[in-house]
């Protein structure tokens, strides 16, 4: 087993427009990228558990040419609205760090 923060060299979150968060997992080797992609661990159900949100709101994409995984999901409050506490969406990445990959 290896933790995601040992396999990915960038684990980041950001707004994708004011109504969406997007999470990027980026890898420096095809080996690490394929290990994570082919593990089947990155699923909507995992995201639902890690982020306490319904599974069907998460869009998960694998970008083979860039060795990158992207996960996008709608915000509960738009950026800067009364209930929002992360205007740029830059600090929503932490639950990904400890994902265990076989």
């Amino acid at each position: 087993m290896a933790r995601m923060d040992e396999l990915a060299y960038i684990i980041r979150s950001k707004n994708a427009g004011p109504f969406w968060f997007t999470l990027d997992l980026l890898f420096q080797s095809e080996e690490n990228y394929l290990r994570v992609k082919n593990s089947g661990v990155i699923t909507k159900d995992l995201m639902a558990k890690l982020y306490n949100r319904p599974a069907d709101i998460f869009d998960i994409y694998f970008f083979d040419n860039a060795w990158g995984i992207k996960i996008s999901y709608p915000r509960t409050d738009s950026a800067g609205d009364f209930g929002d506490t992360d205007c740029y969406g830059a600090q929503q990445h932490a639950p990904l760090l400890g994902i265990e990959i076989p």
Partner: protein
Amino acid sequence: MEMTLYAATGNLGYGFPEIALENALKCNPAFLGSDAGSCDPGPSCLGTGQGFTSRGAVKRDLRLLVKAGAEKNIPVLIGSAGGSGSDAAVDGLIEILHEILQEEGLRRRVFKIYAEQSHEYLKKKLAEGKIVPLEGARDLTEAEIDASAHVVAAMGPEPFQEAIRQGADIIIAGRATDASIYAAIPLMQGFDPGLVWHASKIIECGAAMAVPKSSDSMLAHIHDDYFILDPPNPEKKVPAANAAAHTMYECPHPYLIHEPSGIIDAGECTFEQITERTVKVMGSKLRPAPYSVKLEGVESLGFRTIAIGGTHDPELISHIDEHIERVKGFLHDRVKNVYPDLADGGYKVKFVVYGKNAVMGISETDDSVGHELGIVIDVISDTQDHADSILSMARTLLMHSNYPNRKCIAGSIAWLFSPSDISVGEVFRFNLNHDILLDDPLEPFRIVEDKEV
């Protein structure tokens, strides 16, 4: 055929080294471009017309570009002026430009492109069925248009192209898609749209994909069937993996990116390391889609006042949620005494608890709590006076209300500042998540030559 595109910096005012501009000029770029805005800082820029960068820093960056543009006689293109690209923000940047032209003794033809949309125009397009909701949004209503304080449309490259045709040396544009600033001139010259749009999308953050990371310039050399990413600062390198990764940045999809005239498809691209510092990109496509521009709008939430404090009391920390609910109840009673009209629906209050769940909110799954907690009280009401007044009640109640086993009866909160209460001013929320379908890409935008220079 070859054309060189120059992006000065990720955001006008973030800065770039002079050596980067000097080296870039040796490559004979077709123009000098910079993005000057973003909706990342939230709805306040569009609501207030204020930017999020320092005026002095913006003037420094713009001065270098204006002088270099005059020296080489190439256009300077600035998009999303002043943070939001509102009309007030365009006028604010024009004022800075006037100072620069006067101080440098330069005469240039300056064009302004306004992107703000009237309620009347939006209602007309709504009635024509030309305003469509984006994913997750509902159909727009006239009431939502009426509630908007400011609405901008993000222009494509066509308004820039029209200003260039009319003889612009310098363009100060309102809200524009970041890539449109860089795509305008190469598309006019007939370069491949897929390559032009993809290159423009990658360089719109300046040298963000280069290492070592700092605010800096980026060049893209567009050829017939590929483009090269080339940082003009000799100390910077672009790793191929970073160029690929940057394609994914800030977009909901990793390789399909919506632009006004189509969808950039980078799914089949290759990113090849040519030298240690440069990357060759091939295979970018532009997929056709109906011409549309995105709307960004804000409505007022009222006026905000905040206070920042913290607690180190273990009893309060272990019962913080129930105590906050108790204080909210006391506050409601207190507001009812003083402002009966505001008690129900006339104010909003929240207590943001740092050290517990402030950053992740509903998505927090870690139930551990710090040995001290930071608390921000946030009050919004219809006037600054009401927000100030209700915040002061909330502050006193949080400070002095009892909770079980409370021993620190002189006060439960360490307030950070004196005065403790900070009046923030009018605040806004984004209220539109819609596109307008257009037959004429110029229709919502006003291109005006600035005759005052």
